[in-house]
C-alpha cells in the first residue's frame, strides 16, 4: 500500500510542478472545442440536433482524459530511459504495487486535466442538465482515465524507446478519439463506422459521460456502466501483467 501511495504522490507532484505540461496538454482540446464546436454549431442546429457545444463538450473532456491517461502510461519509457524505473524495480515491493501506483497516479492526473477542460467547456457555453445521473459523470471520467492509463501502461512496458511514439499517437490515440462518438452521434452511421465505434472502449466512456451530463445515451446507461467497468478492470490487469514482465 505504501508503495502505491508514494508512487501516486510522485506523479501528482510531477504534474503540479510542470505548468508547461498542464497548459500544453490543454491546447488540443481547446482547439477542437473552438474549431468544431463553433464551426459546426450552425449546421448542427439547422439539422435539428440542438446545441452542438452541449453535444461536443463531453467528447472533448473525454479526449483530454484519453490523451493524458495514455501519456501517463507511456511515461514508463521515459522513466526507463532516464533510469528512475530501475530504482522502483529493485525495491522490495511487488511489481503489482508499483504499476498500480503508477496507473492510479496517472489516472488522477488525467482526471484533473479532464476537470480543467470541463471548466473550459463551461466557459465556452456548455450547459449540463441536472439529472439523477449527474454524479455518474465523475465516475465515467475517472473510469476513462483508469482504462487508458492501463492501455498506456501496456505500450509503455513493451516499447523500449520513444521511436514508436508517433505510431501510438497516429494509430492508437487519434483513431480512438475520432471513432468514439466524441464529435458525432453514434446513431445512423455507415455500417463499418458503426462497428468500429462499438469496438472502441472510449465510445462507452464518452456515451456514459454525455448521458450523465446532458441525459442523452446512445447505448444506454447499463451498457455503458458494464462495458466501462469490465474493460477498466481488464486493462488494469493487462497493464499490470505487461509491467511485471519488464526486464532491464
Amino acid at each position, binding site marked *: 500500500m*505504501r*508503495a502505491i*501511495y*508514494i*508512487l501516486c504522490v*510522485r506523479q501528482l*507532484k*510531477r504534474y503540479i*510542478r*510542470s505548468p508547461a505540461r498542464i497548459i500544453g496538454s490543454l491546447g488540443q482540446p481547446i482547439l477542437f472545442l473552438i474549431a468544431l464546436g463553433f464551426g459546426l454549431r450552425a449546421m448542427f442546429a439547422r439539422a435539428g440536433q440542438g446545441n452542438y457545444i452541449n453535444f461536443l463538450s463531453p467528447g472533448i473532456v473525454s479526449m483530454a482524459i484519453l490523451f493524458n491517461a495514455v501519456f501517463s502510461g507511456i511515461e514508463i519509457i*521515459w522513466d526507463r*530511459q*532516464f*533510469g*528512475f524505473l*530501475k*530504482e*522502483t*524495480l*529493485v*525495491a*522490495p*515491493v*511487488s511489481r503489482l504495487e508499483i504499476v498500480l501506483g503508477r496507473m492510479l497516479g496517472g489516472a488522477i492526473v488525467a482526471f484533473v486535466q479532464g476537470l480543467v477542460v470541463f471548466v473550459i467547456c463551461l466557459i465556452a457555453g456548455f450547459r449540463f442538465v441536472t439529472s439523477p445521473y449527474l454524479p455518474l459523470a465523475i465516475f465515467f471520467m475517472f473510469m476513462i482515465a483508469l482504462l487508458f492509463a492501463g492501455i498506456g501502461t501496456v505500450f509503455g512496458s513493451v516499447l*523500449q*524507446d*520513444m521511436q514508436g511514439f508517433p505510431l501510438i499517437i497516429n494509430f492508437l490515440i487519434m483513431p480512438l478519439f475520432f471513432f468514439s462518438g466524441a464529435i458525432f452521434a453514434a446513431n445512423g452511421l455507415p455500417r463499418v463506422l458503426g462497428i468500429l465505434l462499438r469496438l472502441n472502449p472510449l465510445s462507452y466512456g464518452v456515451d456514459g459521460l454525455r448521458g450523465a451530463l446532458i441525459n442523452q445515451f446512445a447505448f444506454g446507461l447499463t451498457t455503458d456502466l458494464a462495458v466501462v467497468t469490465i474493460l477498466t478492470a481488464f486493462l488494469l490487469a493487462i497493464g499490470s501483467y505487461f509491467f511485471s514482465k519488464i*526486464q*532491464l
Partner: protein
Amino acid sequence: MNEMIAVQDLVKNYGEFCAVNHIAFTVPEGKIFGFLGPNGAGKTTTIKMLTTVLDPTSGKILVNGHDPTREQKQVRRSFGIVFQDPSLDDELTAYENLDLHGVLYGVPHGERKKRIDMLIDFVGLGDRKKNFVKEFSGGMKRRLEVARALLHKPRILFLDEPTVGLDPQTRNHIWGYIQQLSKDENVTVFFTTHYMEEADRVANEVAVIDHGKIVAQSTPTELKEKTACATLEDAFITLTGHAIRAEEANATDRMRMIGRAWRGGGRR
C-alpha cells in the same frame, strides 16, 4: 564465514550473443569484492541478474541465501545499489528522492527522516536537500545516489562504477565510509570500476571478467604477483589485452539527446 553472494555456472545469452559465459564466484560476508573488466565484458549484465531485474539463461545465484529469480523480495531487501547510469527522479528534490526510497523500503517515518538528514549531510548535500535534482551536477547526483543506496541499511552494497565523475576528495570520502561499513557492520560490497588504483586500494578480492568469462580471481596483491606486474592496471591489461572494446550506443544514450533537446539543454 557466510557467503553473501554465491554464483554457480551463470549464463546469460542475448540471442546468439553470450554476455555472461559460465561464470562462478563467491563473496564472503563483510568483504569488498571488485568486479573488473573492459567495457562490454558482462559486468553490468551480471549485476542485473544478481539484483533481480534480469533473468539468467541458466545457472544458480544466491544473494544473502535467496534466489533472485524466485525469492525476489528477500533478495531486494538485502541490498542497496548505485547503478551505472543515473536513476534519480529529476523532477523531485534531493530529499524527496531519498524519502521515496525510504518509503519503498519500509523505513519507518521517524528513522527515515533521521537517516536522510544524516546521509545527505554525509555526502555534502545538506544545504541542497530542497533543490530539484535536475539542478544538480553529475557528481552531486552520484553522491545522492550513494546516500540513497545506504538509506535502508542494506547487508550488501552493489556499486556499478560508483565513482565516475567524482573528484578525488569525494571518492576518498565515500570509499572511507564504505570501508568503515564493511569493517564495523559487516556490510558486503560488490563493485565495478575502471579505476584500477581504486580497486587495488579498497578491494579485498577482485575478479577480472572479459568476454563474459572470469579470467582471474584473487586478491589484488596476488594478481599483481601472478602477472608479474607492478600495478593492478598493468595486471589488468596483461589479462585482458590492449584492444579497445566497442560498446554500442544504446537507446538510453539516444533518448538522453532527445531529452536534452526537448528541455532546452542548459538545465543539466
